[in-house]
């Protein structure tokens, strides 16, 4: 939990309501995000956890309105960032007032997230230039140096004109973070920002994100497929499966009292220190075909506790405790 008492925790900076983003292909429609609701408060980190293909990236791209075109379309829902429904905005407004300024992103792979043919100074400077926040070459240069210092890049003034290939993986991820925080957004989405890094560098990046959050009070969505990483950084966790959120709650609650069998399966697959040599548990079976998802619970085919009802009706979002929701027929039953 974020223990800092003066952090601006509380006000929601993001409210997502019944978001559906589908991908229309010639051979059918992929229901990549299919009725997702959650919120993120200022100064808080929400973990979005789930296996690959569960719709995490598509959810974050929907928030940025950067889903792949043509093909993908957000068919319904509401996405409120700082009180503004971004689904109502036109592209010009998104570019001018939203992306970078209200919400930004730290993308998955630091090795491919920077443009290889432009200097670091040029790329980080773009954030200032196109939002007209800083004018003039030298002023932009100063601003870039300043933001690179904030992500702890040593002597940035000497490395401004270097190109991405002259930076290490960890340093590149810091540059990406610098681009993301340059215009002080209210919300930041980090899409598996550490998956492609060494463990020690992972830890550094996670620490950095926490420090940035403390300084700025930015709301953070931290996407990962790794429950262990989520435990390290998140205040709350939303577990995603096959385009839907199946469980959401405080990080302690999710870890101590997981209510959805899928969450339980994910927790069982976390590697533990000292148990290295053992074969890692993984949930048997595969996620459903997202072009023809089952009408009942999407996890039914893999669920150890499956009942008849699960196969025919999608379970409603049941409140386990205040702030703890799970979409599972078992939840009501146990009470």
């Amino acid at each position, binding site marked *: 939990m974020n223990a800092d008492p003066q952090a601006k925790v509380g006000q929601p900076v993001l409210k997502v309501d019944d978001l559906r983003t589908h991908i229309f292909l010639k051979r059918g429609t992929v229901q990549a995000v299919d009725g997702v609701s959650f919120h993120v408060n200022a100064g808080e980190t929400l973990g979005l956890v789930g296996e690959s293909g569960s719709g995490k990236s598509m959810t974050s791209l929907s928030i*940025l309105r*950067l889903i*792949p075109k*043509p093909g993908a379309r957000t068919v319904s829902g509401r996405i409120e960032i700082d009180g503004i429904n971004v689904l109502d905005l036109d*592209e010009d407004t998104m*570019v*001018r007032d*939203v*992306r*970078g*300024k209200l919400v*930004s*992103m730290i*993308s*998955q*792979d630091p090795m*491919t*997230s*920077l*443009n*290889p*043919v*432009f200097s670091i100074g040029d*790329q980080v400077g*773009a*954030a200032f230039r*196109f*939002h007209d926040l800083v004018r003039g070459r030298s002023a932009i240069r100063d601003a870039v140096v300043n933001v690179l210092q904030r992500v702890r890049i040593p002597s940035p003034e000497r490395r401004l004109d270097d*190109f991405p*290939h002259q930076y290490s993986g960890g340093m590149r991820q810091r540059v*990406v973070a610098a*681009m*993301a925080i*340059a*215009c002080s957004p209210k919300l930041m989405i980090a899409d598996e920002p550490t998956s492609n890094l060494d463990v020690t560098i992972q830890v550094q990046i996670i620490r950095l994100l926490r420090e940035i959050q403390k300084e700025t009070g930015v709301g953070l969505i931290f996407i990962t497929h790794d429950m262990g990483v989520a435990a390290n950084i998140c205040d709350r966790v939303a577990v995603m499966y096959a385009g839907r959120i199946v469980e959401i709650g405080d990080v302690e609650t999710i870890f101590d009292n997981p209510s959805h069998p899928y969450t339980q399966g994910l927790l069982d697959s976390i590697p533990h220190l000292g148990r290295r040599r053992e074969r890692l548990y993984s949930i048997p079976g595969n996620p459903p075909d997202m072009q023809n998802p089952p009408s009942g619970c999407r996890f039914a085919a893999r669920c150890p506790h499956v009942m008849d009802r699960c196969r025919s009706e999608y379970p409603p979002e049941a409140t386990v405790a205040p702030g703890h929701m799970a979409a599972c027929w078992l939840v009501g039953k146990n009470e």
Partner: protein
Amino acid sequence: MLNYLIKRILQGVISIVGASAIIFAISRLDDPTLLLLPIDATPEMVENLRQRLGLDLPIVQQYLIFLGNALQGDFGNSYRWEQPALALILDRLPATLELAFAGLVFALALAIPFGVLSAVYRDSWFDNFAKLFAMLGQAMPNFWVGLLLILFVSVNLGWLPAFGREGFDSLIMPAIALGWYPVAAMTRMLRSTMLDVLDSDHVRMARAIGVPNRVVVWKYALRNAAVPLVTMLGIYFANMLSGAFVVEVIFAWPGMGRMVVEAMFARDFPLLQVGVLFSAILFVVVNLLVDLSYGVLDPRIRHD
């Protein structure tokens, strides 16, 4: 960097010398004296001429003499024009360079917008139109494009001169005829590179921090597509330089290509040799320039 440059220049020199040896050998397969003398020339006259031109010596010796003279800038006199061959070619070189360069500019002026917009508006009517247009271009040899242009633009409409080299007007149609063909290949290549780049993480990252679409497309993405484009450009430019003769003949363009072709028909060896040598030099220079441009276009490519 300097080492690399020296190595490349040496390689170029070897290619040029090789090209000169090949054309020298090929041109000795035939005897020019019969063409240079009247039909009723006596065998003595023929033998005299052969001696005067040095054609009676063994071919290796002839070649060494040629090389030795060439190093001193002496390529001999054209049989036909009876003037220094080098001067004749140098006189025509600017016209050929001008034409090839104009052809390249025309090709780029079409291929860049076509390729970029086809990628941005993938599968739209524009994309299909560009595809069709490019296919048409590739299906038409340049002499055919040239003849069509002369027929419609010069003969029917009377807008542009059909031949000669006088002012910008006379350059337009030959440049189009020459530049038409590569448009298709360049458009397709640019389209597919742009599709890849536009789908890349760094483009998404740029968009995510609010970089406007036009900057993402025309600056960020296009610069990434520059290396393969310049490679292709180099190949086609070299081809245009050596392949310009067809267009030069059709439009009576006073270029080097036309002169070399005429020299070939006239068995005018000295002229032919200089012409081929210059084609080879241009080829090598263009390739070297393309290579050097990589370092400028892509900071990851360093020659050290």
